């Protein structure tokens, strides 16, 4: 069965790409957010099965949003999306409770596989 996915990224282009990818993989994209604050609000409202979260975003960062979401729902399943060269941030996110991370540029296969694996455990 498909997952209900919330996509968080400040770049419209990235959101669009991820959205296509998830739909193609048989999942449902239930919401999109362009910054951390919006992500927390959407999560509260939608309670998705999976969140893909960009780390570097304006206003509220991905890690702050992750922390906030996990405070509300410790079972929240959040996968961080990061660019190369952000290893320290990735580590910080994992420490803050990220379920996994994927590194841009994304391969379609890897993203879907990660989503499946992570969601299965949840």
């Amino acid at each position: 069965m498909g997952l209900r996915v919330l996509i968080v990224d400040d770049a419209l282009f990235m959101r669009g790409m991820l959205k296509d990818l998830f739909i193609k993989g048989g999942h449902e994209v239930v919401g999109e957010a362009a910054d951390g604050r919006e992500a927390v609000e959407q999560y509260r409202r939608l309670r998705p099965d999976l969140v893909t979260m960009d780390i570097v975003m304006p206003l509220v960062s991905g890690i702050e949003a992750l922390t906030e979401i996990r405070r509300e729902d410790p079972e929240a399943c959040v996968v961080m999306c990061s660019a190369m060269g952000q290893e320290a941030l990735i580590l910080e996110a994992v420490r803050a409770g990220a379920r996994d991370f994927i590194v841009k540029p994304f391969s379609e296969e890897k993203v879907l596989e990660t989503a499946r694996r992570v969601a299965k455990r949840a």
Partner: protein
Amino acid sequence: MAIDMSKYRDMFLSESREHLQTMGRLLVELEKCPDDREGLDALFREAHSIKGMAASMGYRATAELGHHLEDFLSGFRAGGAIPPAAIDRVLAGVDLLEGLIDDLAAERPERDVRAFIDGSAAASPRAPRPTTPAAEAGAPGNGAVTAPVASGEEILKIAIELVSGAVAPAARALLMLRELAAQGEVVDADPNERQLLQGGTVPRLELRLRSWRAPQEIKDLLLAMPDVARVSCVVERLRPATRQSRERTVRVRTGLLDQFINLTGELVTNRYMLQTAYNDGRDREMRDGLERLTRLITDLHHHVLQVRMMPLASITGRLPRMVRELEQQTGKEVALRIAGEEVELDRSILEALADPLMHLVRNAVDHGIEERGEVQVRAGREKDLVLVEVRDNGRGLDAEAIRRKAVAAGLLSPGQAQRMVERDLFPLICLPGFSTRTEVSETSGRGVGMDVVKAVTEQFGGTLQIASERGRGTSIQLRLPLSVAIIRLLLVECGGELVALPITRVLRTLELERAEIRSSGRQMVVPLGNELVPLLSLRRMLRQPAKPVAGTIPVVVSEARGRKIALVVDRLVGQREAFVKSLAFPLDRIAGVSGATILGDGRIVFIIDPQGLLDEGAASGGRSGVSP
């Protein structure tokens, strides 16, 4: 992060042993009173505790057996009574559990319990529960209790190599650790979680996992993760583990810990007081501060010793079982009474005393009691000593048999033997190899003998006394110091050296006039009371040059081989409390030297053991007597 269970291992072992001892005691009581509901309930709870503890430690066979006994007992709980056959069976189960605990303590695989459990149908009050088929046991969530019997604790040893270009490998490794922790329990990891949180490159992650999953499952799971290049996963018998787990543990009342903190606080305050007094050059305050320091150290010492203290109950727990077994073997009827189990002794003394105490009780049943009788084990404080007495109301020691045996063994001449009074004959039974029984009894056996009992007692500076009356019974009294580390010593000077004797080995000291010394054959003796005590030169025993004696002669009266001896020394220096250190190799090989202590001025003083010196002298053919 998973909990590292290895550090709880010693606690598990000591607590399990306590539970098993209680089970043994309860079973013996239940045998006399089979419908004691409370006893049955208590027994059930003990089995339940063992099961629970073993299961959380992952000791499968132990947990399974605990579970089985719990199950077995619950059937009788409903009926309100337990038949003798069932008591035998549970006792056998307790024995098996003891064996399992020994296995775990020795870091061996747990022994098999299946045969015991399968043999339960006959004695069970109802059909035994079907046991879980091995195939089902692999399912997650299945506790250790129903898991198949493993011959030892198994553990998965996992090594993961990441691909060389992996992004954020430390974060990746952390995620793997977490994933694996969800599949079992991570025993240890290299690098560990703390190290991984520092980031950096992680080419390889190695860890040990306690898991219900098959190795292949774990391997597949890891290979499905990103950036994983290679995984190896092999089953390993747990060689537990960290070095710290070999250290002994002891339970401490929290109140005692609070007192330690308070004392530490006072010591710190005192230090500042002394510092100030020193800076200001105020002698009087310095003196007060030092006095205070002395009190605090005495206090601290007292409290530290308390931490080491354990009740006698920790070694008397086995006695009821043993007596029960002896009753069955010998057909005698024996009432065992234990008093003073709450009396505390230093744990090292108790550990050493466990076997000798069993031997004394066994002896009492075996040689003392005739048809039926009573054996009493009694402990009590006597000032700085603890008295442990094993007394029976049986036939008493046969002085004539001891006399004959001593002559036959060449220990005494017929004349000597004839002159000796009963009281002096009894200590002879503590000589190595001395036994008035010509046949070896099945129960008392060979193994530990009275010589070992005496040696252990004296090793801690204790004494052994025997009183016996024909037809009335025998009493063996052990007087032991409360603690081992600090003892009172008598310092004596000999050939310009200071040596010390434990005060517990000193019967008295005196200054002899030359005229008091007599000779008996080639041996010089001195009359003490109505005895003639051989006079020995400590200088000779220590192989120091002889010295002509002028004026009065200082003498220390001690005991060796069950007889009094008078040791001639150069000077009696005085008594002192001292912290005794045991000697390390090669000094520990010197016969007659049992330890050493350091005096306030830095001098090292050896503590001598007259018995050991005499043995050594006899072995090397030297003579230590004072010649006439």
